[in-house]
């Protein structure tokens, strides 16, 4: 996207941020869950069509049809009966508790046959609304360990240097929160408070990519007082993941465009690593990128 288009986006956000659907199948109190455990657990299946997903959970899924050519499928839960989201396939095991909203998209354009390929899950921490910052730190770390224990491997963006632990934290703090963090490293309390909202931990398992990040309530950042945290999980197929390399408005030819960009990424990593080696930082030579999908090998 050119800078001009980017600036157009900014002016758009300054005027009107959000388009809702022109028609909304809002099943009234759909998603307001009564005392019914069956209404709490949602199992997600990559590739399932939106309508099939809604069929599996009648009364729970709210559909927003957007004139641009995609539909949002959402489930909302309210305290105290929050949701539990699980992945159907044991090859990428996932269980997320305290879910407040699940959101996914069904494309009606060139990718309609892919069904639901990306899910966004918004969860609270294991506390009503307020939690001490230190508990948030420990709770997040515990969640990340369960992800690792379930067999997900960590991911470093292919354009970024292979750092680990504290080195990766320091590098991310000095560059961009997008460079993410090493889930094996438990940040100190002081480091935790310096980690920006929406700094991702990224994982891969059997064709699926997972990002986990926290958002820290802006108005409650006093380290001595209670805070409030949101956990956001983004889970997507590797097709959806690599399509992001093809730039805005991907079309039928997205693979060719993505491949061109993919081939540029290793050089960016090498350049970044050369600089870091020069300042005596250790590059994690044991790190392995996840396998590329067949189309890109």
């Amino acid at each position, binding site marked *: *996207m050119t800078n001009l288009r980017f600036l157009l986006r900014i002016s758009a956000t300054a005027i009107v941020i959000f388009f809702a659907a022109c028609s909304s199948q809002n099943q009234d109190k759909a998603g307001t869950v009564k005392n019914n455990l069956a209404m709490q657990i949602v199992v997600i299946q990559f590739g399932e069509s939106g309508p099939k997903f809604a069929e599996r959970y009648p009364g729970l899924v709210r559909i927003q049809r957007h004139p*641009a050519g995609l539909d949002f499928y959402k489930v909302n839960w309210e305290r105290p009966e929050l949701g539990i989201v699980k992945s159907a396939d044991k090859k990428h095991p996932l269980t997320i508790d305290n879910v*407040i909203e699940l959101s996914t998209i069904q494309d009606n354009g060139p990718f309609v046959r892919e069904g639901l390929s990306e899910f966004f899950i*918004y969860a609270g921490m294991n506390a009503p609304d307020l939690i001490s910052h230190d508990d948030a730190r420990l709770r997040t770390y515990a969640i990340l360990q369960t992800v690792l224990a379930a067999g997900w491997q960590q991911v470093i963006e292919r354009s970024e240097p292979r750092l680990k632990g504290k080195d990766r934290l320091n590098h991310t703090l000095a560059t961009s929160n997008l460079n993410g963090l090493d889930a094996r490293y438990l940040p100190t309390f002081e480091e935790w408070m310096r980690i920006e909202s929406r700094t991702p931990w990224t994982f891969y398992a059997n064709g699926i990519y997972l990002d986990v990040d926290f958002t820290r*309530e802006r108005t409650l950042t006093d380290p001595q007082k209670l805070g409030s945290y949101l956990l956001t999980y983004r889970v997507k197929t590797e097709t959806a993941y690599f399509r992001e390399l093809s730039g805005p*408005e991907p079309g039928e030819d997205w693979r060719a465009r993505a491949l061109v960009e993919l081939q540029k990424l290793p050089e960016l990593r090498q350049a970044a690593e050369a600089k870091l080696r020069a300042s005596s930082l250790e590059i994690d030579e044991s790190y392995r990128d996840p396998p590329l999908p067949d189309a890109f090998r």
Partner: protein
Amino acid sequence: MPWSAEALVKIKNFAVSKEFKAGFAKLREFETQANPRYRSQIQLQHLLAIADHEQGVILQPLIYDDTDFVWWLKQQRSLLVNWASPALELVFTHACATGDSALKSVAPAKTQLESFTSRMIWIRSAANDFHILMQQKTSFMEGQISTIAGCSKLADR
């Protein structure tokens, strides 16, 4: 606007906030980033920084500290207030060009305002939806935005 004096004091005369600076930092990051996936993520993070700014610096002091929320919603037809209320859900119809655009604003459920987590989700989810539309249906969205930019010059509705 009779309420503007009080509103401006609350907004600290539009002083540059930490969130605003974070937004500009993301803009700079966008300009120097070669990886298209990162560029897309930076756009979303930039949008969220603006939402943080508007919510924190403008929206929050005016709404969440103000007991008369219903009064506030009525004011949101003015351009300033539309600019300052990103989290209000608006429905755009194609009739805008005929001057008959219906902008329906939906107030958040009470629980969403009272709970920090729910409010964070509301903003994150709305920004994410917008971001997905902008990334995947770019030309449609840019077309709509240009039309809305035109509509905003209409007299107070």
